[in-house]
């Protein structure tokens, strides 16, 4: 129980503490500088890590303060154990002063920690910072990259939501993804069916006359208004019936299949119902009959059904 050793013990944290605190502040300020240059995400990120560090430091400080208190107690105890009054008084004074020192230091710590929360309490209002802070420093760069990635993904999801019709009302990432998949599938199917249709029309033209007039078309289709009416097109065609040639039937069947493909996807159905040229009931009747069509795939039945549909339309 050497007082000197105790004193050295008690002074050690004193000496040890301030540089550490300074170092931390320096690193913090350095981080701050870096943050300004690096941008928002890094700010929150680093502040998160700072927060965690601060937490550690707080715990360290509290333990150090506790050790100091203990050491001062030791001092007083050890000094109480001594017989010499002067030395006892002196040491008590020393202990008191040290205790005062300790108190002062504690105040400083409190003030410093009081400052720190002001700096660090701002970021933790956002929820994810808590998670970040708990994770610690090891995942810094990873988590940064991860956050950037997530932000990008959410951004793109928003863009896609704007792009896909009827997707704004859907909530949830998975549902939105499903909608997008449906939309793209529908578009691809439409391309497929349109290519079939084009082929049919082309063969019809070829039967009537020979050759594809590509040069005429180029100019005219450029000027043609982009037809936005996706689904109303087939129904329009039923009205303009022309002779019951096989080609025509083929065309109509193509239209049917296209129609089914369109109706299978909810997006297009929405756009269809919004298109108020035809009544909604009418659309529903067509939809039902087409749904039946989907089930009966053999040609004869398809033709029978097809006649029924024509009756409904007319």
């Amino acid at each position, binding site marked *: 129980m050497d007082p000197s050793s105790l004193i050295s013990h008690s002074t050690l944290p004193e000496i040890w503490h301030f540089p550490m605190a300074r170092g931390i502040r320096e690193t913090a300020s350095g981080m701050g500088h870096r943050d300004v240059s690096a941008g928002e995400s890094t700010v929150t990120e680093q502040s998160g890590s700072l927060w965690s560090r601060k937490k550690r430091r707080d715990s360290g400080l509290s333990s150090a303060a506790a050790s100091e208190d203990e050491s001062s107690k030791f001092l007083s105890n050890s000094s109480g154990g001594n017989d010499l009054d002067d030395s006892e008084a002196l040491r008590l004074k020393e202990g008191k002063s040290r205790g005062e020192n300790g108190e002062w230091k504690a105040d400083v710590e409190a003030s410093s920690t009081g400052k720190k929360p002001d700096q660090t309490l701002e970021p933790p209002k956002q929820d994810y910072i808590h998670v970040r802070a708990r994770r610690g420093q090891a995942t810094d760069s990873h988590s940064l990259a991860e956050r950037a*990635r997530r932000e*990008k*993904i959410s951004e*793109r*999801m928003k*863009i*896609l939501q704007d*792009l*896909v019709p009827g997707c704004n009302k859907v909530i949830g990432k*998975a549902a939105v*993804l*499903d909608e*997008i*998949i449906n*939309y*793209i*599938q529908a*578009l*691809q199917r*439409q*391309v*497929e069916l*349109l*290519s*079939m*249709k*084009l*082929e*049919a*029309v*082309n*063969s*019809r*033209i*070829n039967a*009537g*006359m020979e*050759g*594809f007039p*590509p040069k005429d*078309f*180029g100019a*005219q*289709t*450029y000027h*043609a*208004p*982009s*037809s*936005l009416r*996706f689904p109303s*097109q087939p129904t329009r*065609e039923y009205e*303009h019936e*022309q002779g019951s040639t096989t080609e025509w039937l083929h065309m109509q069947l193509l239209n049917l299949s296209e129609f089914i493909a369109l109706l299978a996807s909810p997006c297009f159905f929405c756009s269809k119902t919004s298109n108020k040229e035809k009544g909604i009931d009418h659309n529903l009747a067509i939809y039902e009959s087409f749904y039946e069509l989907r089930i009966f795939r053999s040609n004869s039945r398809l033709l029978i059904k097809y006649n029924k549909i024509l009756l409904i339309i007319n």
Partner: protein
Amino acid sequence: MQTYHFLRSLAHINLTTPSSPLHRRSRAIRRAAYVSMARAASPRRMWTRAILSRLQLHRRARLLRRQRSYKKKAISTPHDKLRRLVPGGEEMDFCRLLEETVDYAEFLSKQVRIMESVVDFMEAECKKKEEKV
């Protein structure tokens, strides 16, 4: 640009394969549609490169594709569905995939509109011819 490519390839198909069976021609037209999309879009995009490289390797890679299709059946999460839909999506990470999807969807819808206008035009032509006759 897209329209131009598409019409040119249509004319080409018409010239080169006038008497091939129906389904093959429609497939050729579909391929032409995708290729015209890819040509019109920027070559930096992954999906355009995927489409064009697929076109180049078309005949060689038939067997390969068949083998791949066996593998593809195993997975069915929404991410993988999207991956399969967007050309060249198998090798991308999810972030890139979404970016490509945005671009691809835009071009697809444009292509659909173009094809519709072409079909409309051709039908109008047909009707005119028939009325004359």
